[in-house]
């Protein structure tokens, strides 16, 4: 985590000047600057970091977005784009000398083309709303982050969001055909197309997951899939976490790609069971949720094959959902996991590392050691199919010592993820939260290429600065404090 961005006191003269220019084309309600109005925007889903923005702009047309960007570009004012504010890495943390550009008013579904299986939507449309609106055509939008009832598609594009079904159906980058928007200087730009590819470099893949650093999105064409006729989920109990991990590998090795493959450890199931009564086996060391979807015959086949593999892998109890209500109930605990942690602890801190699945046992043991080292509990929920871990450290933010211990705990776990050949973030993004760990995951040559890519889109560095890619000096400072195994990560940098 590291410290939040340096606090900038709002410069009142500057604020007046920026508000005056924005008011030339935005109404009073569309430009917020009094603290009581801007305070609600001080953080996103990562509430440990807060910062009141200098100005909040709430445009409702693309022309207004373009003028806001041109204005800020001309006045050298940083711009932080924001969707629904559900992000978990502080990607929409405002700047005290910047404009927070809220895309919340861009809520229109522009066009649905059921024959071409696409929907054209504005960035403020909620993820789940897309599936709702295309449901009459038997279609849906596949990526389903846990926050899907609240998070917006614009934010999903910025973060390349995943969900519990992405092993089979992919991430945002696999389900978006076209993104239209503006670069920081107000130039209109379009990445991808409604065809399956576009000429030149794949800038669509580059801009998806760029955490709002390269362009502001104003319209998105998403790919829609036919809704499977049926889905069933198996809930399997294991008396050992590592055995559950091996069962996951065995399912994949058997040539099955389940629609969903999730794991929860005992502390996690106990926390959620009290909250949602999903019917989880509270004696199991870990439970697996394995979903199959397709035609009824296909689902029967796959459930039978998975059951066989799970039994051979030592499952102690297996239940298969008998109907849709039961299927949703089995999932309800997993989907409510984060919320449930909020009930058993004042605060929780969610990690997002991804590891090669075969290292799961080792990493979970490491997390258990960290629990005793830092004296903090850490239940685990895990997108087992694709190796994406969400350990949740429980702490009390009112105790500064606990917050500091949580940060160290998290940093050690992320370091472990890198060590076993994984990554610090699978789907939540780097934001401000993991910016120091970027210095560990990447060498200085790669980081310099990232900075150069940023300059190609935004030479002045005004769009969401301070997120996603650390500066050279930040890595030098971080390296000075965190010498790993006696080896400096960036020996070529001057130290101070």
């Amino acid at each position, binding site marked *: 985590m590291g410290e939040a961005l340096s606090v900038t006191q709002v410069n009142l003269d500057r604020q007046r000047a920026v508000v005056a220019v924005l008011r030339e084309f935005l109404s009073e309600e569309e430009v917020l600057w009094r603290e009581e109005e801007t305070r609600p925007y001080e953080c996103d889903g990562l509430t440990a970091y807060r910062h009141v923005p200098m100005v909040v702009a709430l445009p409702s047309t693309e022309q207004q977005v373009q003028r806001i960007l041109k204005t800020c570009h001309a006045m050298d004012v940083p711009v932080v784009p924001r969707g629904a504010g559900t992000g978990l890495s502080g990607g929409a943390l405002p700047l005290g000398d910047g404009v927070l550009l809220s895309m919340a008013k861009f809520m229109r579904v522009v066009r649905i083309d059921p*024959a071409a299986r696409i929907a054209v939507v504005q960035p403020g449309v909620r993820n789940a709303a897309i599936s709702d609106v295309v449901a009459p055509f038997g279609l849906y939008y596949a990526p389903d982050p846990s926050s899907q009832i609240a998070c917006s598609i614009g934010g999903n594009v910025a973060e390349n969001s995943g969900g519990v079904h992405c092993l089979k159906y992919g991430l945002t980058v696999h389900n978006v055909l076209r993104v239209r928007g503006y670069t920081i200087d107000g130039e209109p730009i379009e990445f991808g197309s409604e*065809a399956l590819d576009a000429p030149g470099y794949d800038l669509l893949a580059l801009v998806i997951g760029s955490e709002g650093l390269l362009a502001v999105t104003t319209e998105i064409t998403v790919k829609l899939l036919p809704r499977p006729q049926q889905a069933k989920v198996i809930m399997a109990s294991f008396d050992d976490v590592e055995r559950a991990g091996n069962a996951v590998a065995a399912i994949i090795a058997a040539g099955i790609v389940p629609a969903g493959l999730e794991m929860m450890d005992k502390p996690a199931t106990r926390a959620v069971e009290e909250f949602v009564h999903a019917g989880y086996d509270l004696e199991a060391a870990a439970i697996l949720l394995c979903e199959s979807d397709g035609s009824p015959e296909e689902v029967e086949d796959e459930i039978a094959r998975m059951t066989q593999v799970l039994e051979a892998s030592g499952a102690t109890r297996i239940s298969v959902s008998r109907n849709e209500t039961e299927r949703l109930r089995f999932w309800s605990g997993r989907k409510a996991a984060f919320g449930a942690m909020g009930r058993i602890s004042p605060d929780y801190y969610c990690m997002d590392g*991804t590891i090669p699945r075969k290292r799961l046992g080792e990493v979970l043991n490491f997390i258990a050691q960290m629990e005793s080292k830092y004296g903090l509990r850490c239940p685990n929920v895990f997108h087992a199919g694709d190796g994406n871990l969400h350990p949740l450290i429980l702490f009390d933010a009112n105790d500064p010592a606990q917050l500091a211990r949580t940060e160290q705990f998290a940093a050690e776990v992320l370091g472990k993820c890198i060590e076993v050949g994984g*990554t610090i973030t699978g789907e939540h993004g780097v934001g401000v939260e993991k910016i120091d760990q970027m210095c560990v995951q990447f060498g200085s040559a790669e980081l310099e290429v990232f900075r150069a890519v940023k300059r190609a889109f935004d030479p002045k560095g005004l769009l969401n600065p301070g997120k996603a890619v650390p500066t050279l000096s930040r890595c030098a400072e971080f390296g000075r404090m965190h010498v790993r195994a006696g080896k400096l990560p960036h020996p070529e940098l001057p130290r101070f």
Partner: protein
Amino acid sequence: MAEAAEAIAARIRDAARDRRPLRLRGGGTKDFYGGAPSGEILDARAYSGIVAYEPSELVVTARCGTPLAELESALDASGQMLAFEPPHFGPAATLGGCIAAGLSGPRRASAGALRDFVLGVRVVDGRGQLLSFGGRVMKNVAGYDLSRLVAGSLGTLGMIVEASLKVLPKPVAECMLRLEMPEGRAIEAMNRWAGQPLPISATAWQGGVLAVRLSGAASALREAAARLGGERSEGPSMQALWQGIREQTDPFFAGADPLWRLSLPTASAPLGLPGAQLIEWNGGLRWLKTSSPAQAVRDAAHGVGGHATIFRGSDRSAGVFSPLSPALARLHRELKAVFDPAGILNPGRLDAKS
């Protein structure tokens, strides 16, 4: 092997210093694709071999010079595949060339494109620096997604020396249906079926016949075949058809007429251009053999929101690829300069100015 990688980096460093253009090349099977190659050949084949493959992780990592056929047979031995079915265009095709060309085969519309399966790359840029982007895990959003940017960049951003790809299990069963119908109805049918939960893994229409490949559980195939109708076949004759389309050895691709690759929104109505057509990807990919002027072909493709590439054929004066908007062209130049400031890597291969 480390020496072979270092030799590649050293060659690029020297060439950058002297500003000598390099022509990055694997087996040379895709020399025909894109702008005409020029410069001294930098052969990728010395750096070869599978680095890591664990079927239960669904990931394979291999070096650029690895023959594509060798890689695919290693996957096949474990019941897995490259789901984007890349064309080889000859036995010499390498993994590096495959990723640099970025081409996908018949399964693309259902399984995804080559870039969708790229998890990470190691690449030597135009300064001769070895860079590593992405990784060997399924989900990774740390840093910009430069491994997907490099896929399909035709070697203009760097020499891809190693790549990690997501692999998938091969389908349990496959069969093919052939249905007679004219172009317009075939396009309509392919799109309608793609919106229904059917196990369709590839489609191809030519000469009034629509071929549909089904892949999945035997039960799902039976059910779908009964619903869609047509003449059912499986086994070698089915495999020969899809292999012929994937590798462009199908009789359609023979002859001297220029071959255009039209990439269009899948449901676009027939364009009505003169010449012969083979349509794949539910209508999203239309191969056109025509002697129509380039501008007429491009106008038709652009008119429906697609783009047109001269895939094979000699007259390339109109440019191989559809031109980019000025804003995108500027970003392309800037990104090229980030990776290859001396402009020595495959100059002119992606467009006349790169």
